[in-house]
């Protein structure tokens, strides 16, 4: 606590005005003391001797004149071993521990240490006394689940330090001193296994930031092949309610080929978090063979929890992601939904009586969104290893209209756009990513020319489809009709995927490459059909076999059997491959 004294002067919703005497910094954490509880808050504006603070709790019962204590620290996350598998609220309080302390409800003013302070970790030193070290370099490791958790020189230390002493290998708690370092002037600092970092500042202790080029497999065919996401890249999923944003993120969090997944449930339903909490401990991570929960951290600020900590929750989440990236791990941050975060900004801006921008969002909305997504990245670390933070955010546009400010501001800064459409979700075509509007700047796992070919078939087919609505089937030529059927086949067997089927949902890259070749053969052929009914029957039977094929494990006997059946039908159609398609194979 600092010596600054403050008193509450006004209350408006979760914004409290404080008259203070002394020094206050912007975004400093302070506590409003009322009725025996201390309510965590953050300074968001300072004018003269008045500060406006946003309270992370309900403001009921605060009176003018209540004392306010200032901490001198910015809102920080505690970083150290033991983060994985935790379920935190937006301020990094572990929810199960809050439940032990306060029962059913999230009583205000109850705060718990984010990390277990009693637990002993097996520390192995790697640095030696005399080593010259900088922030972000590590002095030892502890095993955390399947991962080697590195113990760093705290990121906030500036300059070069000399290691004076380090403890021998052994078991230590996170707050026990394990090393002493000295700066240029000889001033000594003790190091423990955990330290705090202000969440609204990006961690930048890396050697170099690189362009994201390596594709992050999500096992969703439509994403990996057509609208891929790169490790260290960013993407957004806007969509109207009920279009399947959350299911898509949920599937990604299970199957994505990354080391660690951070889920920020920001202003959404509590029931969805409960679903993850119930399912994940039961599921195995194919990479490590351990429980999926051991690679997951959930930051959960559901819609009914206080708005100000909703704003904090996405920053807490991205800070944890950056921390694990520093260990040379690939981290995926899923934020659901960034619109709720933007609305939290809007609510506060309204209370501050700022001049509103479009739809009353604050004018700084765009720059806030941009700087959030910019915290993603693929980096080379001081020890030469590589790590990444990939950010995927859902957007919930009002009325499902993508023209609104949050969607537009997000589209400016992300590398891939997976737009969900009401039309596709109504037709139960999942994932409801609209292939006509979505785009990606990253590299596909399938050769680009093959994708281009499929895309042109799809576009042509859609054109025929919309024309057919006007002129009817009778007015459509047979060759156009076949193109239409081809695009429908591509949609049904490749774009659509059953995320509730364990085999279909987990469609690896090898399989995608394999299947797309099979599809190209069918899409790239011209057939000798006489009637539309014949063509329809042909493609219907292909579709049925293909869907069955999707449900068989890659390379299994069943897989080969189904494939042979597809080949047989294909041969029966007597198709001739066109030159362009032939070249692609």
């Amino acid at each position, binding site marked *: 606590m600092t010596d600054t004294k403050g008193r509450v002067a006004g209350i408006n919703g979760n914004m409290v005005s404080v008259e203070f005497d002394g020094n206050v910094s912007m975004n400093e954490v302070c506590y409003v003391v009322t009725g025996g509880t201390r309510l965590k808050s953050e300074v968001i504006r300072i004018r003269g001797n008045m500060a406006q603070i946003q309270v992370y709790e309900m403001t009921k019962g605060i009176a003018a004149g209540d004392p306010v204590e200032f901490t001198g620290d910015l809102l920080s996350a505690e970083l150290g071993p033991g983060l994985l598998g935790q379920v935190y609220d937006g301020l990094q309080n572990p929810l199960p521990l809050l439940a032990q302390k306060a029962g059913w409800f999230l*009583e205000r003013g109850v705060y718990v240490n984010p990390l277990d302070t009693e637990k002993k970790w097996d520390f192995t030193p790697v640095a030696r006394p005399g080593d010259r070290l900088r922030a972000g370099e590590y002095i030892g490791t502890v095993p955390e689940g399947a991962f080697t958790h590195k113990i760093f020189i705290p990121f906030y230390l500036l300059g070069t330090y000399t290691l004076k002493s380090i403890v021998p290998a052994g078991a230590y708690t996170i707050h026990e001193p394990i090393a002493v370092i000295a700066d240029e002037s000889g001033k000594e600092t003790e190091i423990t296994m955990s330290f705090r970092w202000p969440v609204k500042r990006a961690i930048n202790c890396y050697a170099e930031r690189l362009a994201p080029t390596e594709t992050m497999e999500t096992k969703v065919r439509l994403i990996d092949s057509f609208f891929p996401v790169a490790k260290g890249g960013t993407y957004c999923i806007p969509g109207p309610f009920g279009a399947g944003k959350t299911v898509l993120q949920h599937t990604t969090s299970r199957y994505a080929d990354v080391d660690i997944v951070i889920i920020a449930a920001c202003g959404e339903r509590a029931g969805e978090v409960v679903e993850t909490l119930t399912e994940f401990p039961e599921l195995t991570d194919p990479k490590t063979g351990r429980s999926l929960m051991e690679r997951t951290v959930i930051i959960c600020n559901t819609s009914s929890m206080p708005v100000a900590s909703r704003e904090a929750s996405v920053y807490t989440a991205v800070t944890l992601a950056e921390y694990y990236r520093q260990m040379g791990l690939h981290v995926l941050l899923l934020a659901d939904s960034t619109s709720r975060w933007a609305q939290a900004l809007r609510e506060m801006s309204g209370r501050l009586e700022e001049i509103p921008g479009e739809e009353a969002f604050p004018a700084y909305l765009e720059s806030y969104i941009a700087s959030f997504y910019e915290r993603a990245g693929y980096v080379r670390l001081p020890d030469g290893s590589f790590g990444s933070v990939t950010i995927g955010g859902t957007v919930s546009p009002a009325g499902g209209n993508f023209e609104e400010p949050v969607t537009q501001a997000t589209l400016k800064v992300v590398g891939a756009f997976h737009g969900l459409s009401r039309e596709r979700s109504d037709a139960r075509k999942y994932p409801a990513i609209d292939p006509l509007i979505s785009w990606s700047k990253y590299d596909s796992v399938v050769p680009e020319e093959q994708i281009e070919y499929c895309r042109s078939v799809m576009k042509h087919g859609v054109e025929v489809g919309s024309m057919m609505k006007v002129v009817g089937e009778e007015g459509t030529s047979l060759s156009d009709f076949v193109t239409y059927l081809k695009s429908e086949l591509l949609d049904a067997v490749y774009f659509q995927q059953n995320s509730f089927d364990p085999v279909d949902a987990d469609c690896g890259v090898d399989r995608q490459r394999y299947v797309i070749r099979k599809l190209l053969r069918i899409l790239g052929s011209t057939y000798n059909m006489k009637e539309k009914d014949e063509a329809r029957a042909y493609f219907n039977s292909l579709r049925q076999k293909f869907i069955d094929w999707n449900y068989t494990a890659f390379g299994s006997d069943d897989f080969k059997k189904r494939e042979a059946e597809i080949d047989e039908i294909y041969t029966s159609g007597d198709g001739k491959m066109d030159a362009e398609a032939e070249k692609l194979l």
Partner: protein
Amino acid sequence: MNKVYNRIESITGSVITVRAEGVRYNELAEITTRFGKSLAEVNKIDGDIVSLQVFAGGRGVSTGDEVRFLGHEMEVSFSDDLLGRIFNGSGEPRDNGPALHENLKPIGGPSVNPSKRILANRMLRTNIPMIDVFNTLVVSQKLPIFSISGEPYNQLLARIAMQADADVIVLGGMGLKYDDFLYFKETLGNGGALSKTVMFIHTAADPTVECIKIPDMVLAVAEQFALQDKDVLVLLTDMTNFADSLKEIAITQEQVPSNRGYPGDLYSQLASRYEKAVDFAGSGSITILAVTTMPGDDVTHPVPDNTGYITEGQYYLKDGRIEPFGSLSRLKQNVNDKTRKDHRALMDGMIRLYSDYKNTLEKKSMGFMMTKWDEKLLKYGELFETKMMDLSINIPLEQALDLGWEILADCFEKSETGIKSELIEEFWPK
């Protein structure tokens, strides 16, 4: 200790300000005007200027009226005596019963710790086939009934209140027409459901501020019952009126509007109410059904739109029926595999055929020839609408499933239904 102030500084709409000290945020006050006493709630403090929203509204309030701060926030009395009673938004009796003052509980309390919730996995039976069979309601679910003015949504709510398998029903009426209020009272009374029902009613003629308090009163009471191991069903009508009252107050207090005049925190306001739906691990539950009328039948209007993002699906009431296509219960998958083994298959099969029927209808209206198959579909559609979709049908799920098979058998051959042969063998009427 209760301070009394005799000077009101300003009166705008239903918001008044007084100069006072030591007042707490959200504290209640009592204001005595020439028309009687009313409650008021502190909703802004700026130095010694305290703003209060007067529950009875600002009309007739004089600058010289007396304001007495009560030193506590809004509370509701909780006991089993509530059952069968009717109150207004201030918690005062609307029936002829006595006022209740014991065991006061604060309203608008904190939200439930997500780690103390359990996955929704119990079906809540309503004996309405369009709900039970096609979009099963699940204990702890929150679902709006999207509708438009003129639709029988209150009749539907009353029917659910009478038929639903819940221990306690808490009904909240917001901006209710007086006739509708009487309708609820009479229907629940005649149906024998009144003894397990508590009602908090704000009618269209009552002051706006009381409207805002209704959901909080209802949910505070529901929460207390749920913590006593009761399965509580909360029925709210109409949440659009609630949102409009929020808008009215926000505009009066010169807040910057965000979308069509609604305040920027509309989503949070609605969510903090709907998220009270819960299944407590090892205790009772709250399930919420809330009517949301869509102005102009427009689902992108801010109120239904924000609601859709919060709730777990919606029932879409149109032309006096729960429309199978616009309706969705997102949690039905959690329960409909445990009811009867033909439930899911029959649900999918019947809806698919009904959708084919709709296409046929369209074809027919354009003057196309009807094939034999089309004739079958037309017969099916008509039977489906009269025997299944009518809201007055009151049969348990199993009977509704049997009825479904009967309708299918009446119209189609076994192979035409597209349902797994194994199920057809077992359930097809002999």
